[in-house]
C-alpha cells in the first residue's frame, strides 16, 4: 500500500478546507450580483418566499460547508492523534431529523398557500386574452368588444386563418389577434388562456413570475396582474423544436388610457379588414 502516513508534498486537508471556504465566499458574493429579473406583477409573494428560502438554504450551505472544511482540516491524520469510536446516538439522530423537518415545514406550508393563491380561479373582472403557441411564434387573440372569443376548430387552420377561428360563430367577428405582440393594461387582473397548435411550449414571463406549459389537446391558463408600465420579453421555456430559442414575443404593459386607445385602434382596423 502507498505509505499513507508519509509527509505529502501538499497538505491536502488544508487545501481542501481552503478550497471549500473559497467556494462558499465566491458563490455567496455572486448571489448579490445576479438577481431575479425586476418584478412587474402582483406576484411579489413568490419573490419573498424565494428570498426566505435563499436565506435559509444559504445559511445551511455556508454552515455545513464551513464545518465540512473545518473537520477536514482539523481532523487530518497527525502523528499521535487519538480517534474516537463514538458512532451511535439516538438523541443526535433525532435532533437533526426533527431539526430538518422543523425548518422545512414552514417553507412547505407558506409555499402551498402561495401556490393556491396563484392558481386560484380568475376574478370576474379579469381581462381575458388567448395566447396560442405554434412552432415558433406566439399569437395573442383579443375577444373584441363583445368580450367573447369565437369558437376555433383545428380543421380550419390555414395560412390565412392561423388560429382556426370559426367565421360562422358570431362571437368571432370582432376577435382580433397580434403575432408576437401582447399588449396589456396595468393594474388589472389578466387571465391568459393558453393553447398549443402543435407541440408543447411554455409561456414564460420572466418579469412577472409566470410560467405555464402549453399542452396540445389541453386548456391551460395563467392569472396575474401587471403592476408596472413598460416593455418586457416573453419566452418559450419548453423545448419545442429547432427554433425553440427564437420563439420570443414582446409584452407591452400600458396605462389604462393608453390601453383603451390601443384597443379602439385595433377594433377599427379589424372592422376595416372585415367589411368588404
Amino acid at each position, binding site marked *: 500500500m502507498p505509505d499513507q502516513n508519509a509527509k505529502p508534498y501538499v497538505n491536502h486537508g488544508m487545501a481542501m478546507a481552503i478550497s471549500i471556504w473559497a467556494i462558499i465566499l465566491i458563490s455567496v458574493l455572486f448571489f448579490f450580483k*445576479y438577481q431575479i429579473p425586476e418584478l412587474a406583477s402582483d406576484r411579489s409573494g413568490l419573490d419573498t418566499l424565494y428570498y426566505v428560502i435563499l436565506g435559509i438554504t444559504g445559511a445551511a450551505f455556508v454552515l455545513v460547508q464551513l464545518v465540512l472544511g473545518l473537520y477536514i482540516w482539523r481532523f487530518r491524520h497527525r502523528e499521535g492523534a487519538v480517534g474516537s469510536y463514538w458512532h451511535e446516538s439516538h438523541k443526535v439522530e433525532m435532533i437533526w431529523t426533527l431539526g430538518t423537518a422543523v425548518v422545512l415545514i414552514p417553507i412547505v406550508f407558506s409555499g402551498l398557500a402561495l401556490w393556491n393563491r*396563484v392558481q386560484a380561479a380568475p376574478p370576474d373582472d379579469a381581462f381575458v386574452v388567448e395566447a396560442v403557441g405554434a412552432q415558433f411564434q406566439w399569437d395573442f387573440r383579443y375577444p373584441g368588444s363583445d368580450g367573447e372569443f369565437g369558437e376555433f376548430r383545428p380543421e380550419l387552420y390555414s395560412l390565412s386563418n392561423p388560429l382556426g377561428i370559426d367565421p360562422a360563430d358570431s362571437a368571432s367577428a370582432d376577435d382580433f389577434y397580434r403575432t408576437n405582440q401582447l399588449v396589456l393594461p396595468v393594474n388589472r387582473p389578466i387571465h391568459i388562456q393558453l393553447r398549443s397548435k402543435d407541440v*408543447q411550449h411554455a409561456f414564460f414571463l420572466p418579469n412577472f413570475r409566470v410560467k405555464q406549459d402549453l399542452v396540445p389537446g389541453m386548456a391551460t391558463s395563467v392569472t396575474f396582474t401587471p403592476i408596472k408600465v413598460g416593455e418586457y420579453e416573453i419566452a418559450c421555456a419548453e*423545448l419545442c423544436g429547432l427554433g425553440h430559442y427564437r420563439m420570443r414575443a414582446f409584452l407591452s404593459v400600458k396605462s389604462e388610457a393608453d390601453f383603451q386607445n390601443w384597443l379602439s385602434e385595433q377594433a377599427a382596423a379589424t372592422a376595416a379588414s372585415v367589411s368588404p
Partner: protein
Amino acid sequence: MSEGHDDHGHGKQSFIRTYLFSFDHKMIAKQYLTLAMSMALVGGLLAMLVRLQLGWPGTQWPLVEKLFPVGMASGVMTPEFYIMLFTMHGTIMVFFVLSLAPVSGFGNFLIPLQIGARDMAFPLLNMLSFWTVVPGAIIILISFLVEGGASASGWTANPPLSAIRSAIPGSGTGQTLWIVGMIFFVASFTMGGLNFVVTIFSLRTKGLSMMRLPLTTWAQFTVGVLGLLSFPALTAAVILLLFDRGLGTSFYLPKGIFIGETLFPHEGGAPLLWQHLFWFLGHPEVYIIMLPAMGFASDIIATFSRRPIFGYRAMVYAIISIGTLSFLVWGHHMFVSGMSPFLGSAFVLTTLAIAIPSAVKTFNWLATLWQARIRFTTPMLFALGIVSLFVTGGLTGVFLGTNATDIQLHDTYFVVAHFHFIMAGAGLFGALAAVYYWFPKMYGRFMSEGLGKVHFWLTFLAYYGTFFPMHYLGIAGMMRRIYDPNTYEYLKPLQPVNTFITICAFVLGSAQLIFVANYFWSMFKGKKCTESNPWQSNSLEWSTPVVPGHGNWEGDIPEVHRWPYDYNHPDDKADFTPQWKATPAKVSAGGVGARR
C-alpha cells in the same frame, strides 16, 4: 474448495470465455466499466460542443466543421445539431454512464465480494445483461449517423416532439433508434436488478445479517429494487410511443395537432400521460444513480477517517426511505406542466419529505469526520467531494421542490445546476472514488496517486466553476435548451458568465483524460499491490486474495463476526477490526465506547 462452483472457476478458460462471454461477476463488472468509460467520452464530447456554442454563440469554428460538416455547416453550429447534442448528452450520461458505472459496474464487482458469495446468483443472466446493453449502446451511437441525425426531443423525449416525425429533424429514424436503444437498456437493467436483489437476499455468508451489510451493498440492494419496479414503466411508455409513431395509435397525441401545414388524424391521446410514465421511471432513476455514490462515500469515508460510520442504522433507514419516497415524487418535475395544481401540492409534501433522510445522511457523514484521523488518498478526496457537492445540490432542491418558487426557476439553468450537483456530480465523483479505491482489488495494482490528485483538484474546482454559476443564469431567467441566449435582450448581459462556464467545462473535460490515461496505464504499469487489504479496511472484499480469482476465495468463505465499521475499536490494538475477525466483541451499540 468447498463449493461446486470452483470446477469451472480455476480451470484454464478460453480467451472468449474469460474476456468476452465471462460468467465471472468481476470480469462483467470490468466490461461494464469499460463500456461506461467509452460512453462517457462520447457524452463528454457532446457536452463540450454544447458549451462551445454557449460560450461563443454563432462563432465560426472551421476546424470543428471538418469533424461535423453538417452540424457545423459553414463552421457555425446549427440549432438542430445543438438540440441533438444536449439530447444525446443527457441520454448517454444518465443511462449509459451514470447508471452503468456505479450500479452495473460496481454493483456487480462488489456485491458478491462484500456479502461473501462466489458469484452473483444468476451468472448467466449477468452475462446476458451485459450483452443486452451493448447493442443498446451501439444503437444509440449509430443513431448519430442516420438521416436527420440522432434524437432531438430532449432526454425526456416528450411527445408530440418525439412522436411526430416532422416536428423536429431528429424525430425520424434517430428517435426510433433512441426508443429501441432504450428498450435494450431497460431489459439489461431489469436483469441486473433481479440479480442484485436475489443475490443480496439469499447468498450472504454465515453471520452476515442485513444489518451488518456495508452501506454500499445496502445502496445496491435498494437500487436493484428501484430498477425492477420503475424501469418497466419506461418500457411501457416507449412501446406506446413506438405505436404512436408507426401504427397510428393516439396514446400521447390529442386531436388537432397541426405541424408543417398538416393536420394530424390523431384523437384522444394525452401528452401528459407520457410525462407521468417517464418521470415515474425518471425520478427513481435519479436515486439509482445517487444511492450507490452515497454508499461508496460512506465506506470510503469510514475507511480513511479511521472512524466507524456514524449512525449506521439511521443511514440504512435513510437509504430505505429515500428509495421508497423516490416513487412518490415524480410529479415535482411537472408543477407547471398543466397537471392539476392540487396534485402538485401533494408532490411538494413528498418531495420535501425526501429532504429529511438526505439531510440525515449529510449530518452523519459530518459526524463521522468529527474526531477522525483522515488519510488524504485520492479516493478519500473524491468521497469528500461527494459530500460537498451533495450539500450544494441538495439545498437548491428546496427551491425546486416548493411549487411556488419552482414557477420562476422551472426549465431554467437553475435546474441544470441543481441536478448536475446532486445527481450527476454525486454519480461522477462516486464512480471515480470507487475506481481509485477498488482498483487494487480489480487489477492488483494501484492507480497513480500523483496523477489521481491532479485529477481530483482539477475536477473538483472545475466542477464548481462549471456548474455553480449556472444557478446565477437560472435566477436571471435563462431557459434551458436554448441555442442562443443572446436572442433575448434580458439574457445578453449573462454572456460573460456563459463564457466563463465554458472555459471551466473545458478544463473539467480535459481533466477526465488524465483519469482515463491513469486508468489504463496503471492497469499494466501501476505500482503493484502486495497486500490483500491495502487500505486497512474492514469489509469482506478485502479478505480475498490480492486479485481474487473466479470463485473469489481460495478456501472457505470467511464467516462474519461483526459490522463492517469497527475502526478504532477500544478493545483492539489495531485501529481496524475486519468483519472476519472474531475478537474483540463488537461494543454494544447506543453511544457506548463513547470516546477514546
